[in-house]
């Protein structure tokens, strides 16, 4: 996850190039190179399937490209892209739940099925169990835990992306960690 001062400087130069119609397309190519991987992992942790992630990532960048004129550069480029990616992922999960007649309470079982069917894994059982434990969390806690634990994202940036106060995010992360510990305790 690019978050250093250098990255901020590069971001502002990138935004300048994005706003110039002559360099916009070329600059968007650089956006793809910088953000396709972090966004991929963010989406993949939410939907737990490589092919679905591929589709959602494409939609994310298509939406970003089609609304590039509306991006004024007030927010960080990464914040804007993460927001689009998360909204696309949530919409995808809601549609999938509706298609399969699954209630919101059973979303965890839908995700666990996806985890078990996933073929692109390194085979580490402990990591697989952690993914299942995360899948048991409510949607918002799952998001917060993924961003904080895997991406090591700062609470301030999470707050900008999710529109939630830093205090609420800290509490949410703490609660998620407790639930995961409890999950592993129950396994023993």
């Amino acid at each position, binding site marked *: 996850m690019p978050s250093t001062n250098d990255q901020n400087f590069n971001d502002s130069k990138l935004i300048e190039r994005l706003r110039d*119609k002559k360099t*916009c*397309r070329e600059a*968007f*190519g650089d956006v*793809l*190179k910088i953000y*396709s*991987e972090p966004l*991929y*992992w963010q989406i*993949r*942790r939410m939907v737990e399937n*490589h092919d679905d992630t*591929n589709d959602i*990532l*494409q939609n994310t*960048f*298509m939406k970003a*490209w*089609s609304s*590039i004129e509306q991006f004024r550069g007030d927010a960080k480029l990464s914040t804007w892209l993460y927001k689009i990616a998360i909204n696309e992922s949530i919409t995808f999960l809601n549609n999938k739940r509706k298609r399969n007649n699954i209630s919101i309470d059973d979303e965890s079982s839908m995700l666990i099925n996806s985890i078990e069917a*996933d073929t*692109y*894994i*390194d*085979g*580490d059982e*402990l*990591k*697989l169990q*952690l*993914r299942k434990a995360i899948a048991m969390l409510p949607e918002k806690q799952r998001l917060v835990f993924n961003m904080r*634990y*895997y991406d*090591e994202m700062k609470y301030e940036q999470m707050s900008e992306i999710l529109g939630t106060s830093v205090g609420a995010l800290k509490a949410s992360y703490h609660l998620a*960690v407790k639930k*995961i*510990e*409890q*999950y*592993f*305790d129950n396994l023993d």
Partner: protein
Amino acid sequence: MKSQDILSEINHQSGMTVPDGFFDEFNKRMAENLPVQEWEKEQPVIMPRTFWQKVRPYVYMAAMFMGIWCMMKSFDMMRGDSPLPIEKNDQLVSAINNDAFFNDYFVPAVSETDIYDELYDEGFDPSMLDTTEID
């Protein structure tokens, strides 16, 4: 193992993988398939107007008025009561000055009596005539 230690041991790794070269291929494919933005479409090149293009409408309009004027003049000349004076018509003037033409086409239409009456009215005296010249 304590559950608190599990998160440390996993060390922020999800265990998920992607196919080899996935991101390079994705970025390439995505960049190629980005639709053309409105501003990227070719704008028609507007050439500067030449002097002729600027004055052309006025020239055409003037030509049209000239044409109408010529047409009306032609109709006017074709009218029977045209005010155009005979002396300005070279053809008519030469025809009148030509005695042969005058005698052949104009004189026979006037009776000799009328000519004598007109002469007498103007004070013509036949004795003044040089008869020798007639003979």
